[in-house]
């Protein structure tokens, strides 16, 4: 450790050189040497840091880190949550998951939602945002209305659409009325159709967020860039493709991240719709975990599924973070 010059005697909050050493020093009553006062300063600083960050850290460690750690730990055991935790079975729970067709199906359902969101929601939302990116009457009303479904809870959304999709419900009535009675389906009870129905409702609920995010991004694109391009004879589409879309790429990435993470963790809506049914057709990894973990009290196996879920989110987050961290570091260097 470096020795500090005399000026280090005041309780300097930005004193790095001695950090970490003073936390156990108690104040002494005798005449203080500059060294003691300096230590007092660092002790005080560490006291303040623990006072400020301590409670949050404690709550975070107990209710987030500990359960996640326990999930990893339980995942190596065969355990029903009540008896002694002593049946260590190594990786058997993981093997069992990947060997279970129902689990693999659930995993595929999550990936279905991930890719369909990118494939359908992204272009549609982008197109709508580009078209709406201009002044017109009632613009703020349109924005609020588009945003409304996003604000609803997934549970209320699911109950709402459950009523719309019910046999002889309003959707069937409308289909009959326009003379397409043959198109009537068991929207949530048909094994081949149920995930499409879920995806449709997810799109209804979440596409508004994408549109609003993109509009917010577009409002940040300098107008003179677009004007200059138009004067140079660029068509509307060329302006979008060469200027607007590239410039809101960061916003698009933010949305992709939110969408992928959300799709991986999908639970509420499916649970209210179908509990993962019929016959597991609409299970996601999360509903599968809930069924085995809570309803069948297989805490060991459920935990293994939770860990797999964690790794799926981790992969998505790591990919994203590598983008963001690189950019942040560049920012930091610029500031110096």
């Amino acid at each position, binding site marked *: 450790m470096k020795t500090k010059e005399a000026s280090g005697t005041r309780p300097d909050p*930005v004193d790095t050189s001695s*950090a*970490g050493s003073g936390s156990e020093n108690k104040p002494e009553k005798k005449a203080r040497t500059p060294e003691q006062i300096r230590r007092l300063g660092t002790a005080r600083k560490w006291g303040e*840091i623990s006072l400020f*960050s301590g*409670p949050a850290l404690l*709550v*975070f460690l*107990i*209710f*987030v*880190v*500990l*359960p996640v750690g326990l999930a990893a730990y339980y995942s190596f055991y065969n355990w029903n949550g009540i008896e002694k935790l002593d049946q260590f079975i190594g990786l058997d729970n993981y093997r069992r998951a990947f060997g279970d067709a129902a689990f693999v199906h659930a995993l595929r359902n999550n990936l279905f939602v991930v890719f369909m969101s990118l494939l359908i929601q992204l272009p549609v939302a982008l197109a*709508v945002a580009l*078209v*709406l990116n201009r002044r*017109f*009457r009632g613009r703020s*009303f349109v924005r*609020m209305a*588009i*945003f*409304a479904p996003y*604000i*609803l*809870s*997934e*549970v*209320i959304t699911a109950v*709402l659409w459950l*009523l*719309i999709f*019910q046999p*002889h*419900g309003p959707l069937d*009535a409308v289909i009959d009325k326009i003379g397409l009675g043959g198109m009537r389906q068991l929207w949530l009870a048909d094994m081949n159709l149920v995930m499409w129905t879920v995806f449709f409702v997810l799109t209804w609920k979440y596409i*508004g*967020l994408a549109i609003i*995010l993109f509009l*917010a991004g577009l409002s940040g694109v300098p107008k003179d860039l677009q004007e200059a391009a138009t004067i140079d004879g660029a068509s*509307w589409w060329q302006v979008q493709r060469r200027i607007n879309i590239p410039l809101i790429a960061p*916003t698009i990435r*933010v949305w992709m*991240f939110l969408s992928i993470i959300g799709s991986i963790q999908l*639970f*509420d809506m499916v649970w209210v719709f179908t509990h993962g049914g019929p016959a597991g057709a609409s299970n996601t990894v*999360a509903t599968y*975990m*809930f069924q085995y*973990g*809570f309803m069948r009290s297989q*805490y060991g196996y459920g935990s293994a599924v*939770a*860990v797999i*879920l964690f790794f799926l989110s981790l992969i998505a*987050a790591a990919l994203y*973070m590598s983008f*963001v*961290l690189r950019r942040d570091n560049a920012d930091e260097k610029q500031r110096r």
Partner: protein
Amino acid sequence: MTEQEKTDESDVRKDRQSHDVGKLLAITVGLSAVAVALVPLLYVVLGGFRTTAQLAENPAGLPDPWVFSKYGQVLTSSNFWHQMLNSIMVAAGTTTGVILLGTMAAYPLARYTFRFKGVLYVIFTLGLMFPLTVAALPLYLLLRDFGLIGSIWGVIIPQIAFLLPLTIIIMRPFLKALPKEIEEAAQVDGLTRVGFFWRILLPLARPAILTVGVLAFVASWNAYLLPLLVLQGDAAGHTLPLGVQQFQTRYSSDTAAILAYTSLAMLPALAFFTLMERRIVEGLTGAVKG
């Protein structure tokens, strides 16, 4: 009129024409989007003014005659008000807790220099990668051991914990950006750093606190998995999402009542949150951009 002027004029006309086409397109797309978003919501609100018999006869029709008894039934049910109150208490508790703990934790991370600062920040931000779903099973057992099952604290405290990363990520850059001179002036005036935090930093951080608060409130208000695990037992102890879902299962034959219940559960939040649209968008992008 010279040739030049003619072409100029036709350019302008063409320009205006394409402008009009764009505007027309925007209005058409905008109105269709509004219809897609709002028609299902209208169906729920209007459906509550019908009887189940009306709904069965003509599922997609309008109320004829208007029936107010279903809404009256919900508004006079004690369960509905209990659930509303529970939702408000859980959301308010979560929001207050996360703002307080999160801002306090973000303060040293933003304005102190100390060893392990980077580590501490990374620990909190890594929390973003731990969704509640992953922790749900052990968390349930933990809450059971703490005797928090059935108590709203069993929902509030874990929700605070899981919202901390987001809060710290939003608060830290904001606190960091406040000018150093304010802090020095406070020191000269004899304010301790703790006093500085309470009396000066918290009031100054109001915009960021509002953003974080809205996000936390929305997340808590809409939460389902944790209340589902913790608030077992009778309906009076539920939050609204839980209550709506249970009501829907229990009274599945009374569609009109479900519609009334659902619309009363969603309307206040909808009205409040759409007004907060900008804050929510700001918060979400801010959080992910880091």
